């Protein structure tokens, strides 16, 4: 360590109270920054997971164009084989991955009371129960098993005046253009919390759906789920390689299927940065203030140093060393505290009053989990370090104004 650095270090501890206060301010600011970025990133991940888990899945295999203009005949043939092939092939890179087949059609549902248009989806109940959180939100009756039964969104059931055990008539158009009509028993009613789904979604077992719509072994989507979010790019690559060439099939990720979620995150991220900017400014000004006071208080000391032969430039570097050491120490301390805080809540979850009731209703975990990533740990502290050092330049420059003859004469 150079002489200047050693002097700076000693100087810091010559007035421990002042140094510790500044250190505390920096450490506190950095802790706050690391924790809030961690919470933000963590909540985004949770938001994505919740959306993906509700109904969309991580990705879906569909015929190109089906997403934007769904048509019954735009379907995937030989679905059972393809599903088995995907499950085997993807299981190698993401054990536990679920491939859920779905077929869907717009139909007219009618009760004794009235008729309403709805999206009827044929599903594999077992696969859905593993991949989607929707079966868990059935609050009256039960989820699907097999045969001629249906589960309805809460608002849809209410509007039709139906309860579990009632019968509902389905009227639609089958794949061959014939009339698809049947009577289903309402097995259960779900309340997912997603208004669109609760108002217009109905599900029935896939086999019965395929019979009704004259589309044996055909589906409209193979939904991939129950794999880590980070594995998605690899999952998509693998899936593409496993798809048969004819008819052409597309792999769509959740971002394409639910663009709203991604947009919401991007907007929130932008507004989040404004808050961090303000936080960094507050930290900077408090540090600037402490540095400035420290320099002004020590005019006599500087005067003596200069009288002893210290040059102004050396003095300036000494003061900057002090600032750098103090800031680095504070940032390191803040990072350690912030990381500890994030790590603790990442394991134990952060919850607040009333959240449980709210979350349970929508089948979500009742806590927030912040997330520790290199970005979370480094981005905030790096900015604070840079801005603080920049801020230290001004008080340090005041050293140049010190005149040894004058200051040593002042009465202390």
């Amino acid at each position, binding site marked *: 360590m150079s002489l200047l650095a050693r002097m700076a270090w000693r100087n810091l501890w010559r007035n421990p109270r002042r140094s510790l206060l500044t250190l505390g301010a920096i450490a506190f600011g950095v802790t706050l920054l690391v924790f809030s970025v961690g919470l933000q990133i963590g909540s985004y991940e949770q938001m994505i997971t919740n959306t993906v888990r509700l109904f969309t899945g991580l990705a879906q295999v569909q015929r190109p164009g089906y997403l934007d203009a769904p048509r019954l*005949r735009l379907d995937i043939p030989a679905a059972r084989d393809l599903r088995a092939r995907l499950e085997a092939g993807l299981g190698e890179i993401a054990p536990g991955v679920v491939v859920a087949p779905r077929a869907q059609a717009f139909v*007219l549902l*009618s009760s004794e009371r*009235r*008729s*309403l*248009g709805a999206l009827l989806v044929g599903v594999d109940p077992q696969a859905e129960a593993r991949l989607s959180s929707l079966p868990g939100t059935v609050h009256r009756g039960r989820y699907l098993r097999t045969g001629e039964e249906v589960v309805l969104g809460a608002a849809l059931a209410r509007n039709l005046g139906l309860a579990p055990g009632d019968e509902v*008539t389905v*009227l639609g*158009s089958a794949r*061959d*253009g*014939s*009339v698809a*009509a*049947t*009577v289903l028993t309402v097995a259960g009613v779900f309340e997912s919390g997603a208004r669109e789904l609760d108002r217009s979604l109905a599900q029935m077992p896939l086999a019965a759906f395929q019979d009704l719509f004259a589309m044996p072994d055909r589906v409209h989507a193979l939904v991939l789920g129950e794999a880590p979010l980070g594995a998605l790019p690899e999952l998509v690559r693998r899936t593409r390689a496993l798809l048969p060439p004819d008819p052409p099939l597309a792999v769509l990720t959740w971002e394409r299927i639910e663009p709203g979620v991604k947009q919401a995150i991007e907007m929130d991220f932008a507004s989040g940065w404004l808050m961090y900017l303000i936080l960094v400014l507050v930290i900077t000004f408090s540090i600037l203030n402490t540095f400035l006071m420290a320099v002004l208080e020590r005019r006599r000391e500087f005067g003596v140093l200069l009288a002893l032969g210290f040059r102004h430039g050396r003095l300036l570097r000494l003061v900057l060393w002090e600032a750098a050491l103090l800031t680095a120490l504070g940032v390191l301390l803040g990072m350690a505290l912030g990381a500890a805080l994030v790590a603790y809540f990442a394991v134990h979850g952060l919850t607040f009053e009333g959240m449980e009731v709210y979350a349970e209703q929508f089948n979500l975990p009742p806590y927030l989990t912040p997330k520790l990533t290199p970005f979370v740990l480094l981005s905030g502290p790096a900015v604070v370090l840079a801005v603080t050092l920049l801020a230290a330049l001004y008080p340090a420059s005041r050293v140049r104004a010190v005149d040894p003859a004058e200051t040593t004469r002042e009465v202390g």
Partner: protein
Amino acid sequence: MPWLALILVLLAFPAVAEPEAAAIVRAAIEHYRGKTSWMRLEMVIHRPDWERRLRLEAWTQGLDRSLVRVLAPRKDAGNATLLVGDAMWLYNPRVNRVIRIPASMMNQSWMGSDFSNNDIARSDDLIDQYDHRLLGEERVDGHRAWRIRSIPHEDAPVVWGFEDSLIRDDYVFLEHTYHDQAGSLVRRLTAREIGVLDGRPYAVRERMERLDKPGHWTEVHVLEARFDRPLPADLFTLANLRNPRP
């Protein structure tokens, strides 16, 4: 002074033309439906990759009562549609139920064809809910024909910006086009064959095309028809929809 005369003529012209155009449209619709009608029809629904044929039997009375039954193919035989005024019901023999079609579904396709439920239901809307204007006169196959623009009233429950018809002087509809609010052509109904049914000239083969979906069309071919014969009083009832008289 000649200017004033010209302006007066211009102002007077629509006032004279409008009732006439409306009268032509009304006469054409009445000609099309008769006081009562009975028909056997074939409907061909064409798609780029497949085609489907339906055999239908249809009855109408006045402008606001119709009953359509599917005779073939066997899978769909027995399906029936009843229209009384603005209300529409479907009967399906497999579930043995009558289903009322909600107003929100009236723009949906009828039996998977390019005709909407509204097309089947609302023949008198063109008379009640539109203003008509004569655009011009043309000559078609030795006949005079009027081209008429029909613009829906502000409050009419209609998705179209306007509709144009070409009506022959014997009140046969030759063409009917549907335009969106921006004026672009969206659908076109064309008479492809004109014959004589039960003594009246009639568009026996008509095709409905969707211009936004190339290769999508539905053709209706009237095989047999009788007009203005008395019909049973209970024909247009829900009871008859469910349990057809033998």
